[in-house]
């Protein structure tokens, strides 16, 4: 029987890790991730997993140890946040280029400086081109389920690409919710056993990883890596479908959830925990006769350009909410992608961008309501007050 437990998002992910039962886990403490590994350490101490756990001296070492273990044939995991992820930057690229299917939960937190420990998406957005798949979660349940699915996606023989599963710092990581934890047996069966095709120290099939490539083969290796990365799109959908069927899950496990989009005129594109508040605002607007809708983006990498363009095509106006800045770019990173997805689409909706929630700045329904008001006004006036604006910023 599935258990319904009161868990924080970090604990829920630790439960997923317990069911995944990785062979090796490396960890280094960083707020707000720490309590996830702490919970997992309880499972190690209690003998509930077979994992070898090592507390290393930095996140750079944590990712390096995880990479080493995975290359040696062990299913390996680590988790981090913010500056910890930034310190891993070098190794993230190496992990994806070695085609090592590492799964790493990342608790989203603002990057320094000024130093801040609260949530925003600047950390994972900063590594968006490192060759990792990025899956966002709205709540603790999704973070748990996404982590289980991530193993299947990463380890798929056609994909072999690392995955980061993200959850918003504090809002999800430390907020307590009721979470359904599936039967261990069923979850373990879904996750399956890790059977790597190639490993280090296999004397019958000796292997070299990361050997020097100059202009002779570097580019060719990168192109192959991208090809495999792109294959992950189909696998993400397949794994989501199988997951829903296996666990009778009601969550949407496609690239994004289209909420009340069928006849929508105005919509917001958002990712992470804020989607919950947007959904509430959409319901409120619908009850007052406004044709509002929401796209909750789940998969940021690979970005679902075609599918999203199709979903947004019929709208009058659309706003993208970004919880990070792409300095010098056209607003935030999500906005840049969505705008690019709509190139060549006719008629394309009017479109604007809002930066919000940096460093844990609260986002309330009234702020989201103001976004829809701006969209309505822009359609009437045929232009936006500001194409890239801020929400809840002290003037």
């Amino acid at each position, binding site marked *: 029987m599935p258990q319904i437990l009161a868990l924080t998002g970090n604990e829920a992910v630790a439960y997923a890790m317990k069911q995944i039962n990785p062979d090796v886990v490396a960890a*280094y*403490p960083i707020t707000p991730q720490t*309590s996830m590994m702490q919970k997992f350490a309880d499972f190690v101490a209690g003998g509930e997993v077979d994992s070898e756990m090592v507390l290393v001296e*930095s996140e750079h070492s944590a990712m390096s140890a995880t990479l080493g273990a995975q290359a040696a044939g062990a299913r390996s995991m680590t988790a981090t946040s913010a500056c910890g992820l930034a310190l891993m930057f070098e190794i993230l690229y190496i992990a994806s280029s070695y085609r090592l299917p590492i799964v790493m939960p990342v608790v989203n937190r603002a990057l320094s400086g000024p130093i801040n420990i609260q949530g925003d998406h600047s950390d994972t957005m900063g590594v968006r081109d490192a060759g990792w798949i990025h899956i966002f979660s709205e709540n603790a349940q999704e973070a748990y389920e996404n982590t289980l699915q991530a193993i299947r996606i990463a380890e798929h023989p056609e994909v072999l690409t690392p995955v980061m599963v993200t959850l918003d710092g504090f809002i999800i990581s430390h907020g307590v919710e009721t979470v359904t934890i599936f039967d261990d047996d069923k979850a373990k069966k879904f996750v399956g056993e890790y059977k790597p095709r190639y490993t280090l120290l296999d004397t019958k099939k000796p292997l070299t990883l990361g050997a020097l490539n100059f202009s002779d083969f570097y580019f060719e290796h990168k192109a192959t890596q991208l090809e495999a990365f792109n294959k992950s799109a189909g696998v993400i959908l397949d794994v989501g479908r199988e997951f829903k069927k296996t666990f009778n899950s009601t969550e949407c496990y496609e690239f994004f959830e289209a909420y009340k989009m069928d006849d929508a005129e105005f919509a917001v594109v958002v990712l992470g925990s804020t989607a919950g508040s947007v959904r509430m605002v959409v319901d409120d607007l619908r009850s007052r006769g406004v044709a509002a809708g929401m796209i909750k983006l789940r998969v940021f990498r690979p970005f679902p350009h075609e599918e999203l363009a199709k979903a947004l095509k019929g709208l009058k106006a659309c706003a993208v909410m970004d919880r990070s800045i792409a300095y010098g770019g056209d607003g935030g990173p999500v906005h840049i992608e969505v705008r690019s997805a709509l190139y060549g689409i006719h008629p394309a909706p009017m479109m604007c961008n809002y930066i919000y929630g940096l460093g844990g700045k609260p986002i309330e329904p009234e702020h989201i309501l103001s976004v829809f008001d701006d969209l309505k006004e822009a359609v009437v006036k045929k232009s936006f007050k500001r194409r890239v604006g801020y929400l809840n910023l002290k003037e």
Partner: protein
Amino acid sequence: MAKAAIDYLYYLRADKLPHMWCPGCGIGIVVKAMIGAIDDLGWDKNDIAVISGIGCTSRAPGYLDMNTLHTTHGRALTFATGVKMAQSTKHVIVISGDGDATAIGGNHFIHACRRNIDITEIIVNNNIYGMTGGQFSPTTPYGAKAATTPYGNIDPSFDLVELAKGAGATYVARASVDNGRMMQKLLRDGMEHHGFSVIEVLANCHTQFGRRNKMSDAVTMIDWIANRVVAKAKADKMTLEELEGKVITGLMYQNKERPEYTDEYDKLIERVQAKTSAKAGSGK
């Protein structure tokens, strides 16, 4: 003649108080001794840069009314090296915890020692990662309990004095929070020393370390420290058996002969410039 009482508030950002440390935390004692040492030296507070990384100890510069730089985890010394290279006549002090300075920042620590650059590093060693919840650090004693070593630590710990000496630091001392007067003297001399100086301060984290090791209040933990330490002069007269389980405090090593890094750099510039101008002068 009695010296005028130190005006601590002059050195502090009073509007940032109260501080965030737990009641009874040893870091407050270190900050007090640090201010006392600076006052004793008569340094202008605006000539001092205090640089820190991440952790409980690293919050200290937030309360000090000096030039302060709060940087990234483990890297304070690298930022400090840059500051000293740019402003070699000013005073540069780094204040770090044990996890910050010797785990994630271990590499930078040994290289700052090796260069012998004129920076003073105060390492507040409370044997644990306090801020993130009590994970074991490179100075957690063998067998001690931490959040991540519920059955006792099996990692051997660093002796920071030996590490600093071995890596090339030219002033190495160990102080403890039970003896603020001695700490102030060692900090003062370390700051005055021309070269890389390391002062390890044995401190109490009763919240994260003590609580897991039967010393859950400040007094018990500071007593534990006080009972373990032996001043160097006394220790020199003790036998190895008598020193078993003891930690020696005081000035452990000083070398005034080794050249300091920014001096060497200036000499290099002078030498190369003299050569180039000589060449230019000879018309070749």
